[in-house]
């Protein structure tokens, strides 16, 4: 039980409740609603709900179940990556290479299977190892050099970008991989990574299920396991964490490897969904993952955040992105709309937290 308690102050940014009240100012005295609102994921939940309601009103086609499936699909491919990125941020580090790492993984699996005419599962497994290795490299470099992860992963970002292109070109002679959709094992892998299933006449992409499952798992790990406590501890204060016996090196490196795992998973989705991969893709997505995590209440400075917050963060991004299209607004303004909506949602999020924590 002491574990959960230690995690508590880090999870909610629950303030020390400076109480000019009659009690000694313990949070238990504050109304339940306010205590709920003070949790970062509640703010983002309300922001996401506001965006959803807004588009339900202005865009009639959002009201169809199939439209929601599309929104959730877009959210899930962001959200699956936003989860490990959020955990990493709680642990006090960044990963700028996560966008291109997705494509590195997809390229590895595709080219290995095609060039050696292997069952695609071989490629999938090797790609997992490569992705974990990239994560390990990032984490190891950060821990060993003590340099900011911003710099280290910026380097990895550039390396991967170049390697993606150069190696693809070297091996396939083109900048895109060959179509592997007729190879052994493709059908099975597609079922796992890129299939869809029917819910009351609506086709839902399987990535949505994985996304929510991973979110549940991450929440449990964060709040109920020793490892979860280590994440908060290394993000809050590395040195004092080390002083009380938290394995800082292990925690940081494993968090980077977790991002590698996410990159592998989304990369496999891309591969089995689109059959080929262009080596120039993925650039810029790292910022979207980070944005989803930050909107979801993860502090840029580490030590605070949740796993469920980024789920709403990713949903909000997907909802705004698709909602603008469903609303049929002038597309020239697309990016501007996107920015305004996201800022608005974040402000709601902020306002909710301020209001909730004022007294």
């Amino acid at each position, binding site marked *: 039980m002491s574990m959960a308690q230690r995690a508590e102050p880090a999870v909610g940014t629950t303030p020390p409740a400076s109480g000019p009240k009659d009690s000694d100012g313990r949070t238990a005295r504050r109304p339940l609603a306010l205590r709920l609102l003070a949790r970062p994921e509640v703010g983002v939940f309300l922001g996401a709900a506001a965006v959803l309601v807004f588009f339900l009103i202005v*865009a009639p*086609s959002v009201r*169809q179940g*199939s*439209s929601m499936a*599309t*929104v959730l*699909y*877009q959210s899930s*491919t962001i959200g699956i990556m936003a989860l490990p990125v959020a955990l990493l941020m709680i642990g006090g580090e960044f990963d700028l290479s996560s966008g291109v790492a997705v494509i590195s993984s997809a*390229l590895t699996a595709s*080219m*290995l299977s095609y*060039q*050696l005419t292997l069952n695609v599962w071989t490629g999938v497994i*090797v790609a997992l190892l*490569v992705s974990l290795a990239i994560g390990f490299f990032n984490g190891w470099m950060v821990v060993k050099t003590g340099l900011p992860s911003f710099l280290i992963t910026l380097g990895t970002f550039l390396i991967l*970008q*170049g*390697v*993606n*292109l*150069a*190696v*693809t*070109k*070297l*091996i*396939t*002679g*083109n*900048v*895109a991989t060959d*179509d592997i959709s007729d190879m052994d094992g493709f059908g099975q892998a597609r079922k796992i990574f890129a299939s869809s299933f029917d819910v009351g006449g609506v*086709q839902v992409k399987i990535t949505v299920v994985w996304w929510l499952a991973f979110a549940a798992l991450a929440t449990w790990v964060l709040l109920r396991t020793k490892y979860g406590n280590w994440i908060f501890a290394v993000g809050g204060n590395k040195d004092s964490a080390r002083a009380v016996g938290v394995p800082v090196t292990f925690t940081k490196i494993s968090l980077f490897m977790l991002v590698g795992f996410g990159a592998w998973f989304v990369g496999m*989705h*891309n591969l089995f*969904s*689109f*059959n*080929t991969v*262009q*080596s*120039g*893709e*993925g*650039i*810029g*997505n790292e910022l979207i993952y980070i944005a989803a995590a930050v909107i979801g209440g993860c502090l840029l400075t580490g030590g605070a955040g949740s796993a469920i917050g980024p789920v709403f963060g990713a949903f909000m991004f*997907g909802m705004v*992105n*698709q909602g603008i*299209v*469903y*609303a*049929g607004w002038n*597309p*020239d303004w*697309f*990016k501007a709309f996107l920015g305004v909506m996201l800022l608005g949602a974040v402000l709601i999020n902020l306002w909710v937290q301020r209001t909730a924590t004022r007294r």
Partner: protein
Amino acid sequence: MDRSSPSRFRRSAPFVAVAAAAALALAGCASAHGGKKAEEAAQNASAGKANTPRMTVALVTHQAPGDTFWDTVRKGAEAAAAKDNVKLVYSSDPNAGNQANLVQNAIDQKVDGIAVTLAKPDAMKGVIGKAEQAGIPVVGLNSGLSDWRKLGLLEFFGQDESVAGEAFGNKLNTTGAKKIVCVIQEQGNVGLTQRCDGVQKTFRGTTETLYVNGTDMPSVRSTITAKLKQDNSIDTVVTLGAPFALTAVQSVGDAGSKAKVATFDLNKDMVKAVQNGSIEFAVDQQPYLQGYLAVDGLWLYKNNGNYSGGGVEPVLTGPAFVDRSNVDKVAEFAAKGTR
């Protein structure tokens, strides 16, 4: 690829070694070379070699890394270089200022000719003037059709994006399309906008525009799906690049729409899609030809004083339509990645 020093292209042994090591690490096994050998065999099947003195040509484009289109341009240029005994120095940068620096770099190297794309002509104006002062012939390719003469270029090889768009619109009129959505994968790109505008000019139905994030395929897929659901009267999706066409086909399925897909530009996977009817037609500006002719044009000028297009008219490489009627002929070349 951001190759700031194009001269290193030939003596790039360390780079190749690193890339090869990475390739081996990724492939885990050396037999990946089987595929590459076959690829080289296919490429070496080109014609004989000129015995003219060796010359150096710099090809400087505004390519973003990892785009299948530019890869084909480069392959054309390499084929011409191999045939003409030309040393080809390729470099590219999507940022106009950086691209101008790459041209300056080529001038500093005293190359015998420069082939350049003019995606942002104003930014290139100064440096092209310097090349002319230095007595280096400059030809244009791909983009800059309306500006190449003003900048004093020798000749130009490419497709008029507006003309291509207009031809595309006319072709759509014959398919019975009523309402189309034109999908732009890079907001603010002049050439892409010209294509959609050209389509709108001649197409007799309604045209709408949609912007998608071209570097994120799941996002492209869901955005097109959303558009088709928002407006179920759309009967044709027009994409401006081959990979996006293939993704649009999936979006049509996701949306439960009956819309057809037609596209600009071609690649090897697209050919199959045209063959099996999931894509109606593709307009091909023949990027291979653009790269090839640009290098060959410089060679002809140096060795025989020729001006392609007479020095006043552009040499158009498109729009050539690829549809079910001629796709089988194109397929064998596309398999090599040269169409």
